[in-house]
């Protein structure tokens, strides 16, 4: 009896896997959207980061009317900055994000006004909608402040006043964040994309084995077979979990070649991602794959069509994928309660793996228990739906 039920579970799981394998269009879509997008985003982000790094080190300034301020040009050149003439329509270019640097506008009577002690006004033109120019604007403002300070010091010295009198205190800014730390922010995206692969992998298979079965009218003949509903449900669940787990593995492995393409040195140095990390990701995601598969089946079995099921199952995708995003934007860092929520817990633990921190037994045992409980509840719901008079 038990042996026969096991054989039924195997038969159902085998058939569902074959069915999923033959559904090539869905297979390719899932592979493309879930597995390829992760490395792609990683490479794009690293290119952006590399661009920012390069800009941070660039010693260049674009000025309109530098010919009116030879003293200022001399100051820039003493700081080994290169002065370029600004494009005429720089305001439009800045608005359109066509140039990635701020522009300094010097009025025609700058040098004369300065000599008269009238404090001439220079314009620092940037755009809040242009992040690259904004980053440069802060550095340019600092340079101008330096010139201001130099001029003031000279004037005081001419009048025989010690410049030190003007400085009641001195501020020495020191930014402890380095490029590697900024890169760490980006590596937090990795778990998110692996998580998405699990969700989308489970989605298609879960809907096809439940709502799809009802939609095409094959559920009734299946239930007319002399098998307990539990055996049918277990077989289907195993198949869906296997698909989700396979996509988790593929997507975790796909970051290995992905990181060879990294353009940012800081990110490449920061990202300790090898075969060990990939396998750790996979092991952490297995219980989630099982729970998500069961949850989606439970949601979809009540729907009469795949389309209807898709609407409700998208909720599961949304909740599980949104939680890690909240943690990503959250300011407080890791919290103990985060390990209680499926999706968020896995994302937190994968983050630890990326940072090379050790995982305590309780750390992975708790999410495992939560996922196991969720799986049991969801599978019980699917069995109940099949057993009950849900058939019309």
């Amino acid at each position, binding site marked *: 009896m038990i042996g026969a039920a096991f054989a039924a579970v195997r038969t159902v799981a085998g058939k569902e896997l*074959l069915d999923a394998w033959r559904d090539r269009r869905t297979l390719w879509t899932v592979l493309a959207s879930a597995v390829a997008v992760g490395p792609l985003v990683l490479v794009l982000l690293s290119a952006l980061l590399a661009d920012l790094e390069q800009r941070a080190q660039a010693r260049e300034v674009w000025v309109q009317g530098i010919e009116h301020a030879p003293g200022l040009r001399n100051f820039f050149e003493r700081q080994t900055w290169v002065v370029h003439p600004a494009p005429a329509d720089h305001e439009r270019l800045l608005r359109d994000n066509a140039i990635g640097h701020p522009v300094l506008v010097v009025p025609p009577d700058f040098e004369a006004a300065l000599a008269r002690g009238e404090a001439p006004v220079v314009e620092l033109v940037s755009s809040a909608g242009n992040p690259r120019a904004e980053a440069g604007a802060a550095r340019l403002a600092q340079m101008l402040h330096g010139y201001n300070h130099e001029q003031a010091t000279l004037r005081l010295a001419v009048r025989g006043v010690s410049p030190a009198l003007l400085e009641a205190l001195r501020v020495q800014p020191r930014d402890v964040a380095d490029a590697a730390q900024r890169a760490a922010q980006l590596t937090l995206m990795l778990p998110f994309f692996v998580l998405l692969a699990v969700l989308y992998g489970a989605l298609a298979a879960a809907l096809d084995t439940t709502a799809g079965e009802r939609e*095409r009218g094959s559920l009734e003949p299946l239930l007319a077979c002399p098998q307990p509903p539990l055996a049918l449900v277990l077989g289907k669940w195993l198949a869906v979990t296997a698909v989700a787990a396979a996509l988790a593995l593929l997507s975790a492995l796909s970051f290995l070649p992905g990181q060879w393409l990294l353009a940012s040195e800081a990110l490449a140095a920061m990202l300790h991602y090898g075969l060990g990390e990939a396998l750790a990701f996979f092991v952490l995601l297995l219980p989630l794959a099982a729970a998500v598969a069961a949850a989606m089946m439970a949601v979809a079995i009540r729907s009469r069509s795949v389309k209807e099921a898709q609407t409700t199952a998208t909720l599961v995708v949304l909740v599980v994928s949104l939680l890690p995003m909240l943690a990503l934007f959250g300011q407080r860092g890791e919290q103990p309660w985060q390990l209680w929520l499926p999706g968020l817990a896995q994302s937190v633990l994968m983050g630890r793996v990326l940072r090379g921190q050790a995982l305590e037994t309780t750390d992975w045992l708790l999410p495992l228990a939560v996922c196991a409980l969720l799986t049991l509840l969801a599978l019980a719901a699917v069995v109940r739906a099949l057993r009950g008079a849900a058939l019309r």
Partner: protein
Amino acid sequence: MIEVEQLAKRYAGGRGRADVVAVAGASWRATDGRITALLGANGAGKTTTLRLVAGLVAPDAGAVHIDGIDVAAQPVAARARLGLLGDARGLYPRLTARENIVYFGRLHGLAPAAAAARAQVLARQLGFAALLDRRCEGYSQGERMKTALARALVHDPANVVLDEPTNGLDVVATRALREVLRRLRDETGKCVVISTHVMQEVERLADEVVVMAAGRTVACGSVAALRAQAGEADFEAAFVRLAYGGAQPVAGAGA
């Protein structure tokens, strides 16, 4: 042999709507080696009765016995003795006919080799052996019907229940199906039950007729016996008299 006693089933209407009474006291018996037809208008409760027979729906009252096995008490054992071609006869479009049939054979407890052999035999008997290894997505209505029938017969059940089997079939396919059902009766002595609303079908095929109206069994017997009982020479007229007491039914009278 299938015995149905005083079956009743009502579906909850939900949110202020009245309950729908699908079956309200159906009793009949279908014996081995005979074709029994459940005859009734649309909505007379035929499909629900057959679902109750297969144990897909639990009855509110009454009982079904398949070869003496109580369906409510031992659904798995009862189903093993029943082949059902229900109202829903969907196939898995990405699987071939052979894979579809073998899958159900395995779920009926057949060994892989036995299931494969059965698929071959049934495909030859039903005349679609050439299709066996083609995927089901492009099948015609008749081809789908044959595959679904083979799937229902894969475990060689002693009892076969078919819900409106000729629905959507052309003349050639219908005649072929009738031939198959007669062979099931004559060569293997199976108990065959079909539901239909087509008089012609019943006259040509059925040994025994169960007339259903508004969820009730209103008459049982052979075609000749029913004609005599109603006092009508025409079977259609006899059916109307038996089902609706002679008066033409008002639209929607059959629940």
